[in-house]
């Protein structure tokens, strides 16, 4: 049987003039950094800045000569967008920044508790009309509008236009009564079977998806999201229901917003030196729910897993581990391998084909059958590793062993998840891949792989605190993953793959799943690589800009 066309062919053919199977090439003759439009622009800008400020700035002629090889563009996977590596750095890419902004500035706050307070303690009636009035009011206060005092400073609407509150519920009757402009409509946004699952899981609770302004998160920190929401929600209740501002019962609103709410980042230990609601605290299952591909493309489980991988790469690997924990600029080159050039795509769709043809289809493999699981892992990992060996252009594209280790393990882990429907089997297959990779090639990734990936088989089914957790609940903060640079992308894809294969509407949290289905968000979480690509092409328009208050 003829081999299928490889999904990475377009990307690698655009990178190199030689055939992708060719081992031999030429180096040192391409004009250095000047073959890159981006680098030339950087150099011009840096020289101008240096001249203006009177002392040196960046200079592409310092350090190792860049561009000794043919300069490689990168294709955002499952798109036709090609960008330069600089365009994928989180400091240069406004879409990557906005993805994190949109996650950080989201808090999900229940309305049931405040409604109880208003009805039972304050003796006021809650009706669809009062809820609509409240929602109109809170959409004034959350962006930064004042309602209680007559002489107040407010936020400039042009700076905070991205801020709003919408509601959702599993109870169609409640939602039917609410002004549709304020509703995240589960029935319209999700496939029918997913909508039913989500409504059942959410129940009759009426939930607010609160988006504080992007610029608030930028000026303060992740923990501010709940505080900003709590203050402005309380003000909206006071105004909408004509309550006494100083009454003790008002504290219940702030309490509910701060503590009976869901922020995206769970608390981290002091040793990480990070506050609440920061990216290191986001469990993989939450991140998988934020990724929305399976809502928009319900018949493509591969895309769902791969989009989750891309989101994990930009938030965890590039921003959190690359920025928050390491600092510096080096992580982009490593992390982008998981979502560029359709290489992981090729491996994952191969895995899905194998699962369908050899393993009975999605979720049909018995997770207790260790031999069968290892055979699957060997099949997928062998395909991934031999692809690097058969196609030197692919090997050179992932010229760091850590890139190859992550991508091979991600495809193997996703395969384990999809074949069994169990994310923990997926992560066990990840570790199978790591051991086989090291044994086969005599190399793996950076030093950290010795620590994390060679012992991981032992923790893949551990549920006890500090030894393990179900994969959905693990995150960058899980002890053994605290230094797992570049791994977070694959780890996000693994639980996503399991639940997509099962036909589940969500991975870990139905509320988060619905909140990020909202089309009013700045970043489209159903088309993550496309958004990153638009960021690279300078087409993405982020929120949080300050031009409205800058002269000129």
């Amino acid at each position, binding site marked *: 049987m003829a081999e299928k066309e490889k999904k990475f062919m377009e990307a690698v053919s655009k990178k190199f003039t030689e055939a992708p199977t060719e081992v031999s090439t030429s180096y040192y003759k391409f004009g250095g950094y000047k073959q890159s439009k981006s680098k030339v622009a950087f150099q011009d800008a840096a020289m101008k800045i240096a001249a203006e400020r009177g002392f040196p700035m960046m200079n592409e002629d310092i350090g190792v000569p860049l561009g000794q090889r043919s300069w490689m563009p990168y294709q955002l996977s499952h798109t036709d967008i090609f960008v330069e590596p600089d365009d994928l750095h989180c400091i240069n890419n406004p879409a990557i920044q906005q993805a994190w902004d949109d996650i950080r500035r989201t808090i999900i706050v229940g309305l049931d508790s405040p409604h109880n307070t208003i009805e039972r303690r304050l003796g006021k009636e809650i009706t669809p009309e009062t809820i609509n009035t409240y929602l109109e009011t809170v959409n004034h206060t959350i962006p930064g509008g004042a309602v209680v005092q007559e002489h107040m400073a407010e936020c400039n609407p042009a700076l905070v236009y991205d801020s709003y509150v919408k509601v959702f519920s599993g109870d169609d009757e409640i939602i039917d009564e609410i002004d549709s402009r304020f509703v995240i409509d589960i029935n319209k946004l999700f496939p029918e079977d997913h909508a039913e699952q989500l409504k059942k899981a959410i129940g009759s609770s009426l939930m607010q998806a609160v988006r504080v302004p992007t610029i608030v998160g930028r000026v303060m920190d992740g923990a501010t999201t709940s505080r900003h929401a709590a203050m402005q929600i309380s003000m909206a209740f006071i105004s909408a229901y004509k309550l006494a501002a100083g009454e003790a019962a008002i504290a219940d609103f702030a309490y509910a917003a701060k503590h009976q709410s869901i922020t995206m980042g769970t608390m981290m230990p002091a040793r990480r030196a990070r506050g609440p609601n920061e990216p290191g605290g986001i469990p993989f299952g939450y991140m998988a729910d934020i990724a929305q591909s399976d809502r928009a493309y319900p018949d493509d489980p591969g895309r769902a897993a791969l989009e989750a991988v891309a989101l994990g790469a930009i938030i965890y690997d590039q921003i959190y581990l690359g920025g928050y924990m390491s600092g510096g600029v080096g992580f982009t080159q490593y992390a982008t391998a998981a979502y560029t050039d359709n290489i992981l795509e090729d491996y994952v769709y191969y895995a899905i084909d194998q699962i369908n043809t050899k393993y009975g289809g999605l979720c049909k493999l018995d997770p207790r059958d260790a031999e069968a699981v290892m055979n699957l892992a060997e099949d997928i990992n062998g395909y991934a590793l031999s692809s690097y060996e058969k196609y030197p252009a692919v*090997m*050179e594209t992932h010229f760091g062993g850590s890139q190859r280790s992550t991508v091979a393990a991600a495809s193997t882990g996703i395969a384990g998840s999809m074949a069994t429907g169990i994310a923990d089997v997926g992560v066990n297959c990840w570790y199978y891949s790591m051991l*086989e990779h090291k044994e086969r090639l005599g*190399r793996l990734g950076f030093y950290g792989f010795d620590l994390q990936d060679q012992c991981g088989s*032992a923790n893949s089914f551990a549920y006890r605190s500090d030894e393990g957790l179900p994969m959905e609940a693990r995150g960058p903060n899980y002890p053994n993953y605290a230094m797992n640079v570049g791994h977070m992308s694959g780890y996000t894809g693994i639980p996503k793959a399991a639940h997509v294969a099962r036909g589940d509407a969500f991975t870990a949290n139905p509320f988060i799943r619905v909140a990020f289905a909202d089309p009013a968000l700045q970043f489209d979480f159903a088309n993550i690589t496309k958004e990153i690509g638009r960021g690279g092409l300078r087409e993405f328009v982020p929120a949080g800009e300050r031009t409205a208050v800058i002269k000129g």
Partner: protein
Amino acid sequence: MSYKRQFYPGESDPAKARRRIMDPKVKLRKLRDVPMEDVVKLMGHRNPGEDYKSIHPPIEEGSEPDCPIRKLVTPIDGAKAGDRIRYIQFTDSVYFAPVSPYQRAWMYLSRHRGIDTGTLSGRQIIEVRERDLEKLAKEYIDNETFDSALTGIRGATVHGHACRLDENGLMFDAWQRYVWDDEKKEVVYVKDQVALPLDTKISVGKPADMADVKKRSTIFRVDGVDMRDDKEVTMYQHRIHLLRTLGGYQPFKFKGE
């Protein structure tokens, strides 16, 4: 019955090569003789003829604390003298370099005392007292584990192990520390391991024929020997993964294998 030390399973060529380099009883073949002075220059830690720098007085001077472990361990020469710890780092191409980073670690640890190694995907650093390092560096530049085209001596900017080979079959090096001497058909270093220019070119000889390195490389590859075709290696890799999986954090509860 006394225990006979084992090194690696399998009957394939890479498996045999792994056993061979790890076994300290096997004398590795010497393929070239790079003068010690040139080895010193390549590493760039000191000038040839210059005294070794010390970080502590010689042990014989008796300044060591009373420590039972120190009494048990015979110090290597550099430790006795108080030398600095310095390094050499080799980069090994994926295209059938004679050895790859993990096998370097196993080989060094099996054959030498007083060393520290660190393994990454493309490179393998070995750190040891300076006078011991020089002997060790010469040994591993001269012997069969080094190929002038597929092995690089690189302190920084080490990537290139996974890049395609240039028109002369040389592994990519962004600093071009070594170049092809077309007249002599051999590889010469023009920069030391951190890319400082050398006063004189240093020859590391002719590259081996690809068929030869393919036969003796420790690397399993689909275009050489696929690891899956070595049933014993695959069996042990499965076994390691399975036992770790089943044992978890409570291996004492796991009965059977």
